[in-house]
């Protein structure tokens, strides 16, 4: 029996038309740890997150989430697994026809039998956590990019997932808010023993949050290990990436 919360990629490849986005990648994320995916734009990091959530299917290889092999599951089969996941999209992807608070409450309304007031309170608490307590009734279109990002994070946290997939958490945020988000992610990891997979370009943030990291380049994993191990990688590109982004 595999460890709960673990994510395992085995020889996964993904193409979009002629373009090979991922080429035979394999890695394991242990339960309760934070795994950071680094790499240049277009190297396949966001695609990896979507593969974990089953939003796209691999062309080859196997993906295991918790104890379930998800490669062959359809949208309906993925529902129980997705209930254990939270996903913060790069673009936030808030539902623009409902308020920020209702975005956060949406999954609870669908999947729990909690009374309205309790759902409202939980959504309010999630928004408070990301510093958007006063924006419950605001529409997503009235928020700045950074605020939308935080609202997206609150929505991802609403169901208290055991696996959190985070795409660029600090993009568009000021350094202080970015640091607060890092602290929040660490708290979630520690308090809920959640498994985190984070895509970021922000090296200080990656160091703060990540237990292990993988560096993707041209659809392949060039290096994998702790931050220190990657800093001393045999690949010059990896060393330069970590060095050049030291300041975030």
């Amino acid at each position, binding site marked *: 029996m595999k460890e709960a919360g673990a994510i395992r990629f085995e020889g996964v490849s993904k193409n979009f038309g002629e373009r090979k986005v991922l080429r035979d990648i394999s890695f394991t994320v242990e339960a309760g740890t934070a795994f950071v995916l680094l790499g240049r734009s277009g190297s396949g990091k966001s695609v990896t997150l979507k593969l974990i959530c089953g939003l796209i299917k691999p062309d080859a290889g196997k993906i295991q989430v918790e104890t379930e092999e998800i490669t062959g599951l359809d949208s309906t089969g993925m529902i129980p697994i*997705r*209930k254990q996941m939270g996903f913060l999209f790069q673009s936030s992807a*808030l539902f623009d026809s409902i308020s920020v608070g209702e975005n956060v409450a949406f*999954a609870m309304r*669908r999947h729990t039998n909690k009374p309205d007031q309790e759902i409202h309170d939980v959504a309010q608490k999630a928004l408070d956590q990301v510093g958007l307590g006063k924006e419950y009734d605001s529409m997503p279109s009235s928020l700045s990019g950074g605020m939308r990002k935080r609202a997206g994070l609150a929505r991802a946290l609403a169901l208290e997932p055991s696996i959190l997939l985070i795409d660029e958490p600090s993009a568009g945020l000021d350094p202080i808010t970015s640091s607060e988000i890092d602290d929040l992610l660490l708290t979630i990891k520690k308090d809920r023993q959640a498994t985190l997979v984070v895509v970021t370009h922000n090296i200080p943030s990656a160091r703060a949050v990540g237990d292990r990291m993988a560096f993707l380049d041209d659809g392949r994993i060039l290096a994998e290990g702790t931050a220190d191990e990657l800093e001393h990688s045999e690949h010059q590109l990896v060393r330069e990436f970590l060095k050049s982004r030291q300041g975030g």
Partner: protein
Amino acid sequence: MRIQELANSLQVDSAPDVLIRASYGIESLAILLWAACVLTSGRQAIEWFGDLSLFQAKVIRESFRRPFEFTEILRQIFEIGWRSSPLIALAGLAVGVVLSIHTRSTLERFGAESMIPTALAFALVKETGPLITGLLVSGRVGAGIGAELGGMRVTEQIDALESLAVDSFKYLVFTRVVACAIALPLLTTLMNFTGMLGGFAAESFISNTSFRLYFTHSFNSLAFSDYVPPTLKTVVFGLIIGSTSAFLGYNATGGAEGVGRAATQSVVLSSIFLIVADVWLVKFILFAIPGSI
């Protein structure tokens, strides 16, 4: 003079032949358009129709699987049906007035002005009401569904819905298609009724006909069997509008341009499919229920 006499004077065999011959013209045009489309795009067009058919089959399959999303279906009926009702009512009034004026100018030649309410009721209930309602809804709702789902697709909102363990097809597509299928017959009935009101308004202005007399003439000749098949065929119109526009929006690509393309194609293709389907449905109804049209 009765409608049959009018048909005789137009040198056709019977009153329904007027409609049938008109339908042959539309059918030929539609087939030509279809052939041109297939010939120009070849394999791509065949693939596209295959994908659309699979998409529609999935909608039908989902109607037998839980959850049935009743709340969302009701919300969509409100969005699609209730919010379209002012447009349909206004259009119905205008169509009624115009049809009444045209019918009067024609029937006057034969001294058959007393047939105006009957002729108008038949024209509205049997073809004009269903078809115009379908085309109006295709314009308003088809574009809306195409743009809304297209926008959700390109901004990753559909992916977000899936990530929240919600079946996006069921929640977004199935509910809209079902809502269209339910709303269309209701809107058609509204169009028929307001059309008759428009006809009455025009008639009372010209000939000072009383409300009671006008509607007695209108409804006396209409049987329930005249109303049911043409109105029920709009369920198919609803399925076509909902599924075609949802298919285009749900599979939209290419950012804002893709959303615009999905919205435009939703209107154009829904309208074409609706007209082609109308021809076949009229033939089917004539075959299945002889004398109903």
